[in-house]
């Protein structure tokens, strides 16, 4: 009856001090999950930022989260991309791998298969840049683990609805 669902929610907010704290405080204060959260200014002229939050919970909790977000004073719009039809989700990661010899060649080969770009290299390390779905990034990171994975930095999911419509 109360299955856990994962939802990607886009929130358009006034770009003002404290707005991110309000959103995060709402999640921690009410015990909601944050799987990933990204935020950046997206419309300088109108002083708007866009927050993409991936969250999980029962249907009732997801509805609560959206209602609670909509209630915040600096929030312009809340859209449940998971509910509202097809959308595109992407995440970017920077992945640092160190090693020499066969392992070094193997990780380059895998990077090629995954279409990861080399953005920094030394004689004993690479930094890969990779864009894709969360699952694809997870798979690549897992493959790098035995090959000398050092550091991972990820943006979290950004998402947008397909088609011509504005948020």
């Amino acid at each position: 009856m109360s299955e856990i669902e994962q939802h990607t929610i886009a929130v358009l907010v006034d770009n003002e001090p404290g707005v991110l704290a309000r959103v995060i405080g709402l999640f921690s204060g009410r015990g909601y999950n944050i799987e990933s959260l990204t935020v950046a200014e997206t419309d300088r002229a109108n002083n708007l930022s866009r927050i993409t939050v991936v969250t999980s919970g029962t249907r009732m909790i997801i509805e609560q989260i959206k209602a609670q977000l909509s209630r915040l004073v600096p929030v312009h719009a809340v859209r449940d991309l998971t509910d509202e039809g097809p959308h595109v989700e992407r995440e970017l990661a920077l992945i640092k791998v160190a090693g020499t010899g066969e392992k070094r060649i193997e990780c380059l080969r895998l990077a090629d298969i995954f279409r990861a770009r080399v953005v920094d290299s030394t004689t004993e390390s690479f930094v890969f840049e990779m864009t894709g779905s969360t699952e694809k990034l997870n798979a690549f990171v897992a493959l790098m683990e035995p090959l000398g994975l050092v550091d991972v930095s990820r943006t979290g999911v950004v998402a947008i609805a397909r088609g011509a419509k504005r948020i």
Partner: protein
Amino acid sequence: MSLRQMTGAEMVIKALVDQGVDVVFGYPGGAVLPIYDALFKQNQLRHVLVRHEQGAVHAAEGYARTTGKVGAVLVTSGPGATNAVTGLTDALMDSVPIVCLTGQVPTHLIGNDAFQEADTTGITRPCTKHNYLVKDANDLGRIMHEAFYVARTGRPGPVVVDLPKDVLFATGTYVPPEAVGARKTYRPQTRPDPARIEEAAELIAKAERPLFYGGGGIINSGPRACELFAELVKKTGFPCTLTLMGLGAFPGSDKQYLGLVGMHGTFEANNAMHDCDVMICVGARFDDRVTGRINAFSPGSKKIHIDIDPSSINKNVRVNVPVLGDVAQALEALSDALKRRNFKPTRERVAKWWKAIEGWRARNCLAYAKSDQIIKPQYAIERLYALTRGRDPYITTEVGQHQMWAAQLFKFEAPYHWMTSGGLGTMGYGLPAAVGVQIARPDALVIDIAGEASILMNIQEMSTICQYRLPVKGFILNNQYMGMVRQWQELLHGARYSESYTASLPDFVKLAEAFGAVGLRAEKPDDVDRVITEMLAVDRPVLVDVVVDQMENCFPMIPSGAAHNEMLLGPEDRKLEGSVSEEGMVLV
């Protein structure tokens, strides 16, 4: 220099006046000295000096809840702001419109751990509806007006405006309320969806065991909403129960009124909640004190929920017909929809339901063992009610047994007469709230029904009461215990009364006199009428110490984790032993 050029401190006063504020409850300090200086130089705004900032917020809450206006608070930075936090949380939980102005260290010192600095916007973010830090005097006017707008519209709540001292000294341009542009965000929906109204009307027209369940949202919506609610209940002939926050939204002495609902609600109200087939929830939020065990809550009913706050709908209980909007507008639309259907409640259909209700009512669940030796707390409240009828009393309470007895036994005929801390359950609420009510209604009879433990939490406000010659009556049911704590210890913790007894209480008669008030005491049942009469005869503040039965428990009671039809009716109730399950124990 244009007329609109002024200092930040002057703007604060101007904005308050422009917002229709006539009184501010506050306490001065270093960071707000410029505002106090501006206050000194004007005479449009009255300031009431409290003795503790928590008292200032509760007083403003009392003022707001009896007038329907926004309550205004002014406190200093650091400890002034942190002391206000309990009051702000209380106002958030009970949807009371408050604007609280807090002083702040000058902007260049923010973040430096300066003297009396606290991260006020950070601390109050989760306990306010919204808050602001003003960084430029030119923004001050707009922000003040926005703060009032946010506080009073939608589901009302507290708003903090944090004011750094340099902004108060700086000169800027004041923006009057009419010059503030429309907001792009925060536009609460007040007009209900007509389709939902039709669905609700359909359910109501077909109901066989209907029940109105009204809450504080009716009162917050305004006097018109209360009228419409009472009209609809009377027109339908359906039974009606109210939450703790809703008392007064429907006349307490009316036959259709079943009494308080919830943990200490009546047998008839709770059984009706459990057995009804259509529940019409108006401005209430299905909180845990009302629902009892959630998976056993009113299992067979279709539920209509009218509320202005979308996050209150489907939060605890899934409802069949959510109606998002202002209560008054929704009830108006609902009445029209019923009229269009030529809806006439057929007596026969509801008659069977009323018969069941009368059966529950006949249990007389609020009865208690009377005594001529010792004052029963229920008796004291019954006499207070009887002797103040016709004097239109305004009642505030503290939190605990006395509060529940007052809610059960005092019958409120009209809204805006009952001020209590419901959601947060703040001991120490009643006395300062009474200050606010008496300031708003100087000629009214204002009584704080209190317990001796609660009233001590803000007893310093007696000094405020005496300074402003407010004839507030503190009616203390003194059992020397934190009564509700003791009751739970008796029922759930093997009568191990851990720290719930107060060994060294003050002599409340002498305490009253020390503040400059009148002190009275009742020790025997025969004394009760005499002290109440004396209390009412005095046109001065009074503390009445009513020495009551120490072991009396508040019944009926739904034990935590139990359902509405598993109520305990009294000390003789056989279910009492082991009535609370292990899951119930962990609930509050």
